[in-house]
């Protein structure tokens, strides 16, 4: 009996740090479909609400291409992203990313946040692998990224 408790405790302590690399999965079907058409639909936890607001206001030039959409659809997605934003939901991951955002700052690229860079300090050749293609392609390495699980694989 005692060994079971100890074993369970050990197992828990092993999984605990990994749990820190998880965020709630994005579930809104409209948002999943609209964002996921061109790239992984990132969970909103990685940017503050004001960043998402700016992003949804500038869809005409979305990282160099037009991602314009019907106003009602954009408004819906904007609400989903703002409601799930780092400064609205909190949590470990959100806190780690928010630490590096200036008050009032509206960063757009999650991959430029030091919280991301510190954990992705690889040689260029890693990023250049054909199945990776872009830094935004989380599921290339984190197989369960779309479910909010960024544990190492």
């Amino acid at each position: 009996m005692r060994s079971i408790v100890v074993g369970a405790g050990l197992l828990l302590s092993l999984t605990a740090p990994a749990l820190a690399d998880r965020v709630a999965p994005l579930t809104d079907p409209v948002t999943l479909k609209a964002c996921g058409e061109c790239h992984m639909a990132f969970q909103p936890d990685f940017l503050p609400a004001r960043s998402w607001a700016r992003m949804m206001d500038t869809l005409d030039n979305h990282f160099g291409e037009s991602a314009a959409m019907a106003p009602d659809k954009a408004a819906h997605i904007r609400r989903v992203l703002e409601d799930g934003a780092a400064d609205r939901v909190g949590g470990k991951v959100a806190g780690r990313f928010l630490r590096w955002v200036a008050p009032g700052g509206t960063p757009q690229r999650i991959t430029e946040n030091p919280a991301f860079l510190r954990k992705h300090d690889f040689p260029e050749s890693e990023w250049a692998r054909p199945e990776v293609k872009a830094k935004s392609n989380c599921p290339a390495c984190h197989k369960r990224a779309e479910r909010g699980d960024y544990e190492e694989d």
Partner: protein
Amino acid sequence: MNAPRSGPGRWELPALRLWHAALAGGFLVAWLTADEDTYRMHVFAGYWVLIAVALRLGLAAIGTPRGPLALVRPGRSRLMIWMGGILMTMVGAAALSGVVADAVTSVEDLHEGLSEGGLWLIPAHAVLVAWVFQGKRLREKVLSTIRPSVVPMLVLLGLVAASPAYAVDPARDAILATYAAAAKAADGTFGGFSAARGEQIYRARNTVNPDFPSCATCHTDDPTRPGRHAKTGREIAPAAVSANPKRFTDAEKVEERFNRDCKTVLGRECSARDRGDFITFLASK
């Protein structure tokens, strides 16, 4: 040993009816909610249907061997037993493929096909039940006017009912008709869309955006092949209708894509004629 029961339990027929209502209701809800906006309800109803199908086998196991819950009842029309079996298999397969499609999007087409098939079997099932239970009067009336046997007739009926599902997509034609009307309004001399002009747009090399010089940059030189987003690497389903029958059937999406991609790749809006030409080209590939 207990004395053998003389007949089925009194609960069995009501249980069968309740089960039938649950299955039919679940299928109806799943059918009505098969849309992005009501996706959760659709998933719920799908699981409901799947459980109902499984429950039917359980009910058959606990029911009286020759009672209402038995899958094969003596004295019942063969045709009805077959119909029941096929319908249940189809509906069960549709629900099961839906569960898989929830995780693997490539199974979506199969799920849609199976559900469509199940949908067409339902009226056939209703007709058959009416036929068997309304009995002699109906049968004699119809048979006295038309002699051919019932089975081929039903098969024919089913085929006729199912054919629209596999016909050319009317939604794409409607989209093209809208663009044609707009093109005609803009230019009185407009004489129809041209696949050749559409191909020129598709293959042209442009200079506005070095990341996306051409449609073919992402959609590849052969539009029947799957493409890949030039920057994110996300896979894109084939642009050609022959390889991807769903292309250009959702008017809202078609407009959204033209509005975006013309601006990104060509640096300008596409006219109604451009859009119609482009669709005509990819519908011919």
